[in-house]
């Protein structure tokens, strides 16, 4: 099973730009399925990016973040080849983790 997380981290001198796309339904809990039954809320609550033992970006999300969420940010202090660790947890206790090398 492929990871639910896709990451692109590219170094541009001192600044590393990170883009991530995560496969997740981000169900609001307000939408009904084809049978007219409510689809329970199912969404990522926390997404964390760590580099060299330090949090570089932490997202707290509600249900208003789009399906298959996307986020982009940049940080300083890393170089090409450093490892970025990405992990998320959702409201049902689901989680995933992956690592990506900064290119």
């Amino acid at each position, binding site marked *: 099973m*492929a990871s639910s997380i*896709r990451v*692109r981290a590219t170094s541009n001198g001192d600044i590393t730009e990170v*883009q*991530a*796309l995560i*496969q997740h339904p981000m169900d609001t809990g307000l939408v009904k399925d084809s049978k007219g039954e409510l689809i329970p809320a199912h969404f990522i609550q926390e997404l964390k990016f760590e580099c060299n033992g330090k949090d570089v970006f932490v997202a707290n999300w509600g249900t208003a973040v789009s*399906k*298959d969420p*996307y986020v*982009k940010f940049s940080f300083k202090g890393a170089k090409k080849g450093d490892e970025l660790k990405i992990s998320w947890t959702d409201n049902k206790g689901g989680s995933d983790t992956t690592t990506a090398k900064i290119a």
Partner: protein
Amino acid sequence: MKPRSALLLGSLSAALVAFALTSPRVVAADKVDPIADAKAFQNFFFQKFPNVTHEDFVNGPYSMNEDMKRQWQEKEEFPPYEFALDAGKEVFSTPFKNGKTYADCFPNGGIGIRQNYPYFDTKEGKVVTLELALNRCREANGEAPYSYVKDEMASLTAYMAYTSRGKPMDIKIPDDPRALAAFENGKRYFYTRRGQMNFSCASCHVQSPGERIRAETLAPALGILNAMPIYRSEWSGMGTTSRRFVTCNSQTRAVPLEPQSDEYRDVEYFLSYVANGLPISGPGARP
């Protein structure tokens, strides 16, 4: 029931008046001439939208509207079809139970060939689409066919389109009266009004590209299939050419045909042929 029907009637007659005013001139139909048809089709769009570069038509509604184009470019930084693409590559390279693969069914191992589909099969005497060829490949290798509208089929065609990006659409019409008939039949389907809304494909995608119908910005018909399959935000997922036809029919309140029915195969043939020369841009992302 009554007020709703009455409302519909009102909008219908308004639409009819609009068509009456904008209908292209009528010329007596004679023999089938796909080359002339394709030329006229492309010229119509090039003249109607002189500021849109020719290759940009394959980007659908985004070629028509700057604000939407910006949102699209933003999304393309990490496009929503990314997961389908990865899944498609994996499915494509995973052997069947008999050890063979999709690559064995297609010219050039299935890579970079999207621009040649659909083609007219002179043995069968019918149009064969990429989706149809994929399921035939599966069945020939003892595998159950996939749904034509989404999931694996969309992933597979996404991957195959991706390996063909930028290649000009290159549909051939062989010297076979049945091929010409299929082209003509596809053309007829494209222009025929159907459904309670009394819309043809052309009503929206020839007469009104770039305009909004209810909430949607209409894509130009020229190059519309070059972007297939697409991730539609409205669907929250991927859909194939079949899915596009089915939903278009439903929106005009016509009962859709079976995916890969003769009519759909023929209209795909027609629309792809008249887009010859425009690049493959699939998989695409659409609102």
